[in-house]
């Protein structure tokens, strides 16, 4: 009987799975995760009372006006923050991405050592920008520029520049590089070759990620509201302090609407680009 050769990938896969489990277990221990607490009787009744106060959602005229103003402010913080972040992220992504390497076009996709060395400082800058959480930047800027939306805008701009720049650079690298390489081999400049060779393939991915990040920026601006950076978050903080569960519920419903809106927008834009 013919003996079939064994799949050479089987053993490494098994070992990697075992390694992942071995690393996960101490992680759970370190995080002090104990799901049993959720089932204990006193914590259940505590949670029940908290949630029961959420009904019915507050909907009188005066509160809705306040809610609308706070929502618009949140949207404005997120959008302005994203716009500032893009100003930094787009040039940084172009500098950091191996996709724009001229030498890669004639070396089978491997960029030259010198170019790689120049890309590292930009990568380092992006890492620095996103390694500090936006809430920390917000606390910092609240001290510098005072309470209000400006602190939130600046905090989002800085952290999101780091995230957008990194992911944009990786999206540029993940699409088919041959169109760009062919253009570079035809004597075209890098930026022109990028716009004609990479951007058509990367556009829908870029738009999808950008709209998703905008959605995240909305949530982040809410969290930063708790430290005094304005918008819905500041209102939630106030309502929570006054134990006004109905108001909190209305604001959570507003979030749901905002996320639905972002999702619909993303779908629409991707549909246009597909």
């Amino acid at each position, binding site marked *: 009987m013919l003996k079939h050769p064994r799949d050479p990938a089987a053993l490494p896969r098994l070992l990697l799975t075992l390694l992942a489990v071995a690393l996960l277990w101490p992680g759970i221990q370190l995080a002090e995760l104990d799901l049993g607490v959720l089932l204990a009787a006193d914590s259940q009744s505590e949670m029940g009372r908290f949630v029961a106060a959420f009904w019915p959602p507050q909907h009188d005229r005066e509160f809705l006006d306040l809610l609308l103003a706070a929502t618009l402010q949140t949207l404005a913080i997120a959008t302005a923050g994203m716009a500032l972040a893009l100003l930094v992220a787009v040039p940084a992504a172009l500098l950091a991405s191996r996709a724009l390497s001229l030498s890669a076009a004639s070396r089978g996709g491997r960029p030259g050592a010198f170019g790689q060395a120049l890309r590292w400082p930009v990568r380092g800058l992006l890492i620095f920008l996103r390694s500090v959480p936006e809430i920390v930047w917000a606390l910092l800027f609240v001290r510098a520029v005072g309470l209000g939306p400006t602190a939130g805008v600046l905090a989002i701009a800085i952290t999101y520049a780091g995230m957008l720049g990194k992911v944009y650079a990786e999206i540029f690298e993940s699409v088919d590089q041959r169109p760009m390489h062919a253009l570079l081999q035809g004597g075209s400049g890098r930026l022109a070759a990028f716009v004609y060779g990479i951007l*058509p393939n990367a556009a829908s991915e870029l738009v999808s990620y950008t709209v998703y990040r905008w959605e995240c920026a909305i949530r982040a601006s809410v969290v930063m509201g708790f430290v005094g950076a304005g918008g819905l978050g500041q209102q939630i903080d106030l309502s929570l302090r006054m134990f006004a569960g109905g108001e909190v519920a209305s604001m959570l419903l507003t979030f749901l609407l905002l996320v639905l809106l972002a999702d619909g927008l993303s779908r629409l834009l991707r549909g246009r680009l597909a």
Partner: protein
Amino acid sequence: MSLRLTGAHLQHGNGVHALRGVDLAIAAGERVAIIGPSGAGKSSLLGLLASALQPSAGAVELLGADPWRLKARARQRLRTRIGLIHQAPPLPPRQRVVTAVLAGKLGQWSLGRSLLNLLYPSDIAGAREVLARLDLADKLFAQCQQLSGGQLQRVGIARVLYQAPELLLADEPVSAMDPVLADHTLSVLCRHAETHGATLVASLHAVELALAHFPRIVGVRDGQIAFDRPASEVNQALLDTLYANEQLVSPPLPTVTLNLQIPRC
């Protein structure tokens, strides 16, 4: 002399020796066909001639300059005078044909003009003219993903015709076309080279097409030049040795292969 290879050696990143000591000289305005079995090094040879690949040893001289001794900027300027037609044209699926063709002149245009050209095609008439020569004028505003393999190959050819380079290189330019279309397309290429005084080097699977359209034939086998003769001196014995395969019983008939893998765009 339009191009000259001296002892050119090429080793790919995976360690495969694609070319071993190739000497080749082609005068300006010549038309040369490269034939040979699959994996013989035809594409690698064209890559060297297009300055797309750097030789691991030996010298390359293209249009009077060694591209690998030039600074990057000067090399890009040299490359604008060289056009390479790819077997599977690397075009983004959603790019429109008009944009894909006009991209041939990116190297000659300023960045500003290149960007404006994306907003509104700056030379619709020029793109239409080259596409019409290849019987593709009706696809001017179609997206690349709507075209068939043979139509895509012609878009790739139209781009290089629009570029109008002094050195015109083609890697299996008609592999996805039917015999009649392949014949027509090759004569368009040859006519273009003649009227513009451009040098044309093309690799071909179909020997009869090579013999019909090109005065000089270069046979490549195992990364070396097996023969280099005028088309009139190429006989069946030469071709049999060129395509002889130790593992297959009968030598594969060199015909137009239509089942080549063409990617989605």
